């Protein structure tokens, strides 16, 4: 029978969550950080290339979860792309592993301007627990110019979303 199914579909709640509110402080802090640089506005849309510079894969799990139907990224104009050549944002996870340095530099070189680098997770922020190891240069700021830090081990999808939305809001506020 089609009717009961239709009725159920009509009255069922959507699977997606409501959009998170971005904390005022995040936006302000970010605005100050970006104020020094003048960059073209992109409109409310960002293409994101995720790069793992040596994470434990915990951050990848949460970045992947961010793409599930509960968060439904595309309604905010955020989408993950396969190549840095198509990206506005490099979302980098993990500490700056020396074995990944060259690959990170090449990824940045392939990303067209204007571009943003987001360090996601405690490791990317400052090396996290791996700080001081012979094999890492602590946070990814040692290799790439970082615009936004999203702490957490790993940051939850909600925290990642907040951070990315704050990037959009600051940019559109600047006009």
């Amino acid at each position, binding site marked *: 029978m089609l009717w009961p199914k239709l009725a159920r579909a009509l009255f069922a709640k959507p699977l997606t969550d409501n959009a998170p509110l971005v904390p005022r402080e995040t936006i302000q802090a970010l605005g100050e950080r970006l104020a020094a640089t003048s960059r073209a506005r992109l409109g409310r849309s960002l293409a994101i290339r995720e790069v793992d510079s040596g994470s434990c894969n915990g951050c*990848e799990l949460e970045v992947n979860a961010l793409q599930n139907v509960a968060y439904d990224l595309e309604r905010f104009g955020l989408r*993950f792309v396969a190549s840095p050549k198509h990206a506005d944002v490099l979302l980098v996870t993990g500490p700056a592993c020396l074995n990944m340095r060259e690959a990170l530099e090449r990824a940045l070189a392939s990303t067209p301007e204007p571009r943003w680098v987001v360090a996601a997770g405690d490791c990317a922020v400052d090396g996290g627990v791996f700080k001081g190891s012979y094999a890492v240069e602590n946070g990814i700021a040692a290799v790439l110019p970082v615009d936004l830090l999203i702490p957490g081990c790993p940051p939850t999808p909600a925290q990642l979303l907040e951070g990315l939305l704050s990037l959009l809001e600051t940019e559109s506020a600047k006009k």
Partner: protein
Amino acid sequence: MMGPASSLIRSGNPQGAKPCERFLLSPTAWGQLPAALQQETELALLGLWADAAQVHACFLHEPSAEAVLASTPAAGWNYAALSPARPGAVRFERMILELWGHHAEGAVDLRPWLDHGRWNLRHPLAAKPIPFAGEAPQPEFLPVEGEGIHQIPVGPIHAGVIEPGHFRFSVQGEVVVRLEQRLGYTHKGALSLMLGTSPRAAVRYAARLSGDTTVAHSWAFSAAVEAALGVTPPPRALHLRALMLELERIHNHLNDWGFVCNDAAFAFPHARCGFLREGVLRAIAAAFGHRLMMDRVLPGGVAPDIAPRGAEAILAALDAVEAEIPSLMQIYEAHASLQDRVVTTGYLRPDLACAFAAGGHVGRASGRGFDARRLPQSQPYPTLRFDVPVLEAGDVDARVRIRVLELGQSIALVRQILASLPSGELMAPLPVRAGEGVAMIEGFRGECLHWISLDDGGLIRALFPRDPSWLQWPLLEAAIEDNIVADFQLCNKSFNCSYSGVDL
């Protein structure tokens, strides 16, 4: 009946490791080990590692599921390579040379592995590391000969949101003739940070060896410490550990089932698995305060306790998963286009799975049924009812089916654990003293093997955490042979080996 290798090992000098003994062999006796191993095929090599002075190996006698460790002095001279007798030893021998500087005599392959020539020192875990400055060398790949063969280099950065590593495909037309992996990109030097610290401080590195296996690795690490110190965690802590371990298995199996379908361009199961998994993760966060349960398993027990409404949230999320598995399975089975991609793809021969002692779904889809939860010391599992599904087909489909069957088993286990959760303490005190312990905990990929040696002050003198991926990565190279390049993603996802777990 003990085979020649087992007798040879047990003729060594016992070193007091718990619960499985470690025997120290003279270089001469160790030199006879490769030949003895050739004659005793049921003695599987589970891991090979070192400390500044010795090389250590862990073996499993497959018929009795008994583990035994063997060591030999290695500083100052070359130890005999095990790789001629056990193919799984190859990557360990490469790692031992790089991290500790011990050279394996007669090794099958000693090309650089983790050390890409980018650190400012060599042999970082040796008694005296050597400063290094210089150009990073070009990687060497094994030569492939034949008409019309060309190479496809992929990575270290991949197209999806996954860990970095390099794959070198040698291809004839569409068909993969050889895949060679080059890993090590995520080497973080975790072992060097753990040495000389207390187990309480070091467990956070075990929790971050491979984020998707955080519970299994923290438990295996903690269990090795507890074995070394003769400590038994309280019953409530053991039950909570098992609860978390099964939840970790559930969320990873759901994730990978969805991803395998997605890699065959079948997005619907991926969307549903992702949604169900999100429900499980939120319930986990409500119960344990962290979506992946990082830093919850500690040496001596568990902290914090499960939240008051945690059990309810978990059961509700699992009811939703269980209710949908049959319809998702029906969709998986009913679409010829999907079945066409997974059935017979990425076939792993059972004899290879045995030769490498592959654990987890990789082993169990190719007839090797070892599951560390069946070991008598794996409390609380001996008190719980569960099956260990084993299939023989060895293809992508079989690995998916093992995952789905294990989902059902794990859901049932969670219900049993929650129904019989003992009350009481969560943490046993840890004495400060020397000791040596080894432990195996069955993570979603297979058994996580941890060995630890503590000095008189209770600090870590030596250790090795062996992720199951060590023995599975090489098999992915075998499984992809004669498949088309386009099926690599599927094969890769059906294995889903950890990069960080083996890069250390």
